[in-house]
């Protein structure tokens, strides 16, 4: 890419690149919001000016930081954007209707240039965009000279300006009041121009952020900020060299000495951690959990050899360790949680972009952005949500005239909501558009040779149909969506994450996709049970109670077995039957009570061996998609133990589908008998 960065041993610069990408993301975020708002602000000249100024500064920063790490294409593109924005802001050019469109396109290109650098790929061609921007910026000024209008917001260093060094010391108390680096940054940019931000480590290990700001010479406007952890001093009168014209040149690049002072600290927030490192930490914790479990097993084995007193001490030690590990695990998981907003906040921008192209009027409503989900889920769910939002705009929302004709508001609404329900996160992507034309989908599918039942198809089948790779109701695919691969990828991703998608659509009223995903569940408490010669793990959270059943107490009614339970009759489902493990003939056995009320069942196993923490590994391979077995674990002996989704199993049993499926019984039995014998070793 370039010599300086690729020099061996230059870990420092590559570490700095990570910060560069993170900082780019922050600036791009501001730009995206700014561009969105710019449309709404047209006509409101004060609002417009403020936005243009904010955009100008963001592009300026992007140019500066790109130059610093030598990402030439990004620097060049940001330079042109900055130049165009400068002329817009200074009223030398009028904001033309398609200006925003050009800005959005160029920003998207800038984003992909940065993404390409991150992926170490060659950058996309920027020349056409550069030329387009250059020709826009080089237009002659509008007829009305700009001199008559007020200068933009007084943020330019002027005669009465000064350079200030602001220091901000973040504390938990301030964070509670909502005062963070970000908010300080925006305060400062409201009064002046931030020339640089530098995190510094104090001798006591705390962090101070130092902002160099050119702003008003009179400090009265920030006098009230002292109680917010801010202090300041005047450095020098702002004159030539720090002003904007010069800053486009290399003088903006901090000298290497300054960089090493900044160290590897993130420019804002407290710490940025590579997700892989968190994964490493998590897998170390998982290893510890397994090791501790082994220790406990070994301890149980030597119980008789040790004096009771000694043994009890050791036992206490492992119990303490278990508790501490549990806390450690919870803490690590909490570190991984981020706000679902990381996905959501991009969507208004995406929707707007598609809507502009499709000539539709759409607004995006976000709900529950504060819901916390695992960072991994954010990474994986970004594209699926993106796709659903694009689909909603291009297929869901009708053109304004159709909407008005149907008595709906001209502007379509897409609602993104997030919430948690027990151990699941729910994401809903809903639009108030035309709904899916079920008849058309069915017609297409039948035309393609599908064996569909006559009459209307249910939402589940509809979802299956539209999730098939290649399915599209459009004859020619438009750019934004309609690429038939989309829905199949959405469903596949969700399933790989152990979640599910459901669909609800009503003609004329809209469509809603509900995605439910497991919260991070890398380690969980499980009960280890044995049935036949197989061990299974049942997550404790799904079990109401563990009971012992006398075989003599089982009542048989037609095809059902019932047991007395708390004065009622509880349906009994045998795991041996469900999994074709052969019949048992023990006088008594154990059962899990699952569900409550009408839904309660007892799931019978041979014996429950005990409770353990298990490391959950999801089984995402298409070969391993078996109802009721979402994952597997390993208990430290190298053997795989299957994890049961008892809720799904009991549903399956209730619907009678398992018993009524001879094919499943047969293949199941074959699969089990073919394997190597698995000993009934106790966990």
């Amino acid at each position, binding site marked *: 890419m370039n010599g300086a960065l690729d020099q061996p041993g230059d870990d420092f610069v590559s570490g700095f690149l990570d910060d560069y990408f993170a900082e780019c993301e922050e600036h791009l975020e501001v730009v995206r919001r700014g561009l969105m708002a710019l449309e709404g602000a047209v006509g409101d000249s004060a609002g417009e000016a403020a936005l243009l100024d904010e955009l100008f500064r963001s592009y300026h920063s992007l140019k500066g930081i790109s130059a610093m790490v030598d990402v030439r294409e990004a620097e060049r593109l940001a330079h042109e954007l900055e130049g165009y924005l400068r002329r817009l802001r200074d009223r030398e050019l009028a904001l033309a209707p398609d200006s925003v469109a050009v800005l959005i396109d160029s920003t998207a290109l800038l984003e992909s240039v940065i993404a390409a650098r991150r992926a170490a790929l060659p950058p996309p061609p920027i020349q056409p965009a550069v030329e387009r921007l250059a020709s826009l910026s080089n237009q002659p000024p509008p007829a009305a000279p700009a001199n008559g209008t007020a200068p933009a917001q007084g943020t330019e260093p002027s005669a009465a300006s000064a350079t200030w060094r602001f220091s901000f010391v973040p504390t938990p108390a301030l964070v509670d009041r909502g005062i963070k680096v970000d908010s300080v940054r925006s305060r400062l940019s409201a009064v002046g121009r931030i020339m640089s931000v530098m995190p510094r480590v104090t001798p006591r290990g705390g962090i101070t952020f130092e902002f160099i700001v050119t702003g008003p010479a009179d400090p009265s406007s920030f006098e009230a900020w002292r109680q917010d952890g801010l202090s300041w001093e005047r450095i020098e009168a702002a004159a030539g060299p720090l002003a904007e014209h010069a800053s486009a040149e290399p003088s903006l690049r901090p000298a290497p000495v300054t960089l090493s002072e900044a160290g590897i600290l993130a420019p804002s927030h407290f710490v940025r951690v590579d997700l892989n490192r968190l994964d490493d930490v998590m897998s170390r914790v998982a290893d510890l959990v397994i090791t501790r479990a082994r220790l406990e097993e070994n301890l149980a084995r030597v119980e008789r050899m040790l004096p009771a007193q000694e043994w009890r001490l050791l036992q206490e030690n492992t119990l303490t360790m278990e508790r501490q590990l549990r806390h450690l695990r919870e803490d690590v998981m909490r570190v991984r949680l981020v706000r679902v907003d990381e996905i959501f906040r991009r969507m208004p921008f995406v929707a707007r972009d598609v809507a502009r192209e499709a000539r539709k009027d759409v607004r995006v409503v976000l709900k529950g952005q504060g819901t916390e989900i695992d960072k991994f889920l954010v990474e994986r769910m970004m594209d699926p949500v993106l796709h659903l939002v694009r689909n909603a705009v291009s297929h869901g929302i009708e053109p304004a005239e159709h909407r008005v004709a149907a008595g709906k508001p001209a502007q379509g609404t897409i609602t993104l909501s997030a919430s948690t329900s027990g151990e699941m996160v729910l994401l809903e992507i809903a639009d108030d558009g035309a709904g899916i034309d079920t008849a058309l989908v069915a017609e297409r599918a039948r035309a393609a*040779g599908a064996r569909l039942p006559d009459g209307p198809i249910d939402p*589940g*089948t509809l979802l*299956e149909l539209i999730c*098939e790779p290649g*399915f599209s109701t459009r004859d020619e695919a438009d750019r934004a969506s309609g690429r038939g691969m989309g829905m199949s990828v959405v469903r596949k991703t969700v399933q790989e994450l152990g979640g599910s998608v459901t669909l609800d659509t009503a003609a004329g009223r809209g469509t809603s996709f509900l995605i439910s995903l497991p919260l991070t569940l890398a380690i969980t408490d499980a009960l280890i049970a044995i049935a036949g010669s197989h061990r299974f793990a049942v997550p404790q959270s799904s079990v109401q109670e563990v009971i012992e059943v006398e075989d003599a107490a089982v009542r048989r009614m037609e095809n059902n077995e019932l047991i007395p339970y708390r004065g009622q009759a509880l349906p009994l489902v045998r795991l041996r039957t469900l999994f074709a493990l052969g019949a048992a003939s023990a006088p008594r056995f154990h059962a899990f009570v699952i569900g409550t009320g009408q839904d309660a069942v007892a799931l019978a196993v041979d014996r429950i061996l005990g409770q353990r923490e298990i490391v959950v590994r999801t089984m995402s391979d298409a070969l391993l998609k078996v109802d009721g077995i979402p994952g597997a674990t390993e208990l430290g002996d190298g053997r*795989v133990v299957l994890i049961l989704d008892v809720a799904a199993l009991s549903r399956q049993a209730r619907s009678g589908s398992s018993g009524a499926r001879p094919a499943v019984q047969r293949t*199941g039995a074959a699969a089990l008998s073919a394997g190597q014998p698995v000993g009934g070793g106790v966990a």
Partner: protein
Amino acid sequence: MTGSSGRSYILFSVAGTTYAVGTEDVRHMEMIEQITPMPNAGEYLEGVVFSRGQIVPVLNLRARFGLEKAAHDLRTRLVVVQSGERWVGLVVDSAREFVRIPDAAIQPPSHAMSALSTNYVEGIASLGDRLVLVLDVARILDTSMLPVPAASSTDDLARSAMPATETPR
């Protein structure tokens, strides 16, 4: 498949026939120890193993090829292959050879071969007087070419609904 230098292959045998898979498709090989059977799965799926920190599905190649399964013995091996992100273990009768086969020595499968083999045989290689079937790993693992195990009737239905008549783009 370009160049004349050829690729290297692992040879293994299943029911008396020798097969080859490209070494770049093979993650590793191991003795078979503990396979955990998977209830209610297809007959070709022998179960799952824990291999190199991952849960890996184990496919019985005899069953996959429509042959009688055989009891495992000391020569039985698990060949863990990779296709994209997927790791899948293949149970084979034995696996001992590692050869380089020139591209020119591989000819496409004859149309006269039985439908079962042509589904996943990429070519036929002549190694001296031996004939070796070169396997296409991706196709062996392609679940749409496997008999549908569990009762996902809607999947089945939807799959049949989508032949290649509609272009994906």
